[in-house]
């Protein structure tokens, strides 16, 4: 069952073999190897991010997503404090994420981000880009200070940035699955509302669809997904999963549904390749490299390859198209 010593192709083969026998009913969830848990967690989170990322990219809200990925630090701290003082929950280990903490923290941080950024922009009349930037950097700085005071360890932060997928656990799988199902459900149910508020907010208002409500819902989803992904890939790398797959998918299609599906696909594919590569480096070269970092590297190269090779929009395709047009223009026969 273990993946010890397998190289890249060995991992892929073993994984699909296990997957097939799981479907056939020969395997149970209890005996999952750590690589398999890693793949599943990364795939689930990747698909969640691709779903919300597609809309965030189209609405030009990716910087707000970046903003949220910073403000969740203070959201988690506040949530911890609330849970400990008002509900007498014990903090066994700092930054252990469970469902209650997840919900409360994501609610707090998305509200903080939206409210404060808007406050600086509209009431204090600060220009929009500066408002966004100021709010999240300051909240993050305060978050770090608070974390330092509460945990006496100012390096906890780097685990938040990078996560630690190599310590991933079955409980993380539950959270990742929960996030996946919620995000898929919300995207399917509210698809046309998300579409209309992203494309033409004036028309949405006329059609009695609230722009504010769906913007907040999207940010809430982002917040929850980022926190859920905390232990697996860390906060900033979630941004990579939010931004890169939709941009890759956009190179292949002009239709929203296809774009979302393709983004989910590239995300999942990248996850499997990254885990396989990670095991490969460990087995063949004895190098324990960061799987989360590998995820981003893989996504980047998939994007890069698409920029070059995508049909119609890729650089090479455009080059050939231009060359052909020039030739036919020169010889109209």
């Amino acid at each position, binding site marked *: 069952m273990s993946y010890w010593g397998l190289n890249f192709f060995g991992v892929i083969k073993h994984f699909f073999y296990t997957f097939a026998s799981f479907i056939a009913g020969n395997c149970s969830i209890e005996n999952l190897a750590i690589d398999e848990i890693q793949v599943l967690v990364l795939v689930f989170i990747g698909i969640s991010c691709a779903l919300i990322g597609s809309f965030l990219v189209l609405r030009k809200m990716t910087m707000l997503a970046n903003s949220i990925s910073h403000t969740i630090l203070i959201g988690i701290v506040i949530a911890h404090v609330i849970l400990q003082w008002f509900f007498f929950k014990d903090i066994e280990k700092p930054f252990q994420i469970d469902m209650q903490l997840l919900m409360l923290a994501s609610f707090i941080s998305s509200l903080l981000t939206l409210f404060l950024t808007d406050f600086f922009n509209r009431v204090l009349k600060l220009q929009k880009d500066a408002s966004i930037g100021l709010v999240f950097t300051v909240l993050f700085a305060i978050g770090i200070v608070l974390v*330092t005071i509460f945990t006496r360890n100012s390096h906890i932060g780097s685990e938040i940035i990078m996560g630690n997928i190599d310590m991933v656990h079955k409980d993380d799988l539950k959270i990742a699955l929960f996030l996946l199902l919620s995000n898929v459900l919300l995207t399917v149910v509210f698809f046309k509302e998300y579409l209309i508020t992203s494309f033409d907010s004036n028309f949405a208002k006329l059609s009695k669809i609230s722009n504010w409500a769906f913007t907040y819902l999207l940010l809430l989803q982002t917040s929850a997904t980022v926190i859920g992904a905390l232990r697996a890939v860390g906060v900033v790398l979630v941004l990579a999963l939010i931004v890169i797959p939709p941009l890759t998918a956009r190179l292949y299609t002009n239709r929203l549904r296809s774009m979302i599906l393709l983004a989910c696909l590239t995300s999942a594919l990248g996850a499997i390749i990254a885990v396989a590569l990670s095991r490969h480096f460990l087995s063949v070269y004895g190098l324990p490299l*960061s799987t989360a*970092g590998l995820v981003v590297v893989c996504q980047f190269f998939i994007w890069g390859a698409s920029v070059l090779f995508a049909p119609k929009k890729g650089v090479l395709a455009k080059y050939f198209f231009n060359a052909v047009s020039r030739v036919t223009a020169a010889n109209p026969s």
Partner: protein
Amino acid sequence: MNKLIPFWEFFTDPVLQASTISSMLMCLASSIMAVIVFIKRRSLIGEALSHATYPGIALSVLMCAGLFTKAPGVFPFVLLIGALISSLLGMRLITFMEEKLSVKSDSALCFVLSTFLGFGVFFASRLQFSHPIWFQKIQMFLYGQAATMLSIHVILYAILTLIIALFVVFLFYQIQAIGFDKMYTKVLGLRVNLIESLTLILIVIAVVIGIRSVGVVLMSGMLIAPAAAARQLTNNLSKMFLFSGLFGVISGFLGNYFSVNLSIYLMQVRPLWRVSLPTGPMILIVAACITFLCLILAPNRGLVTRLYRRQKFQLKVLRENILKEMYKTGSGQSFIQLGRRHRIFAPILLIVVCLMRLQGWISKENKLYILSDKGTKKACRIIRLHRLWEVYLYTHLGYLAENVHKSAEEMEHIITPNLEKKLSQLLKDPKLDPHDQIIPAGDG
């Protein structure tokens, strides 16, 4: 029992010196470039560029770890150059995505930000278990480690800061022109592309200096906060540079000051906590507090000032309305009568009446308020403005006679003497308003 460290010791103590001075230099450099970035409305570019330095840093350390057993003398320079190249590559990618791939600006920034950070994490992980000491050197760039600065850092940063300051001083007018209207500047024949490239390189340099103090994640804040604060205090670009630089330097110093002294204080008050506050976040928190105070209290644009002035105007309107009313009724009025007629709360009416007495418009006799000469003149002026405006609406803008009154009720409090003169000239000093009432003459 540790005593709090007094502020001059931050410059004299050999341990604190390097950290304090290099933080102040770094903040100066970044606050100058922050102004340029602010006027172009591209404040978030600092966020992308600072994260983009990370792979360069990781690779430089990897290289050194492979070639040396201990950090060589040139180590700071190697790191600097690695960070610089990496960040410039990031900038190139952003421009490529925006121009050639039609990617929206925010997506391009976030793309580079996250991708480069991911690469950095990947490279750094090579050293995580095999060479933990080298790995630490990479990690400290996430949040900065001002405390371990050496004199060589100080000298290096001083030189770079000087270059940045000189650039801004010598190319001030070009920077201003490009920031305001790039296309026009190009048409004028100025070498816009060259200056833009130089600006970019200097922003990257400011970022690279800064991450050693505040770290990759927080650096972008120092490229926003000082400029935002300065903007509230002035409309003049050169003053904006000066204020921004000042605020930057203050933040750099106070960040160090508070991180050290607050830690000491907390150590006394809560020794069990064993807290040591990191410098980077403290610098940023100080900078943000300054910005927030400027946004609220700035003399012209600040929130408090604006609210105050609004209130003042509304009180003025109230006073003038009461004056008008008293003139029209003719006789004296008691406090209660005034309150009832104008429907104001007693405390506010008290303030208003006191102000009017101070201004010499009214006086009190036998518990009644009557108009003074000065008050009468003022009332006449307001009525004159009211009726002049009515004539203007009626004759020049085609309003019907019954519709002009409402607008005039508002305008009578706003028209300046200058505008009054223009109106009188335009209307040829009319004597009657559209309701055939007499218009009081101007100036007595």
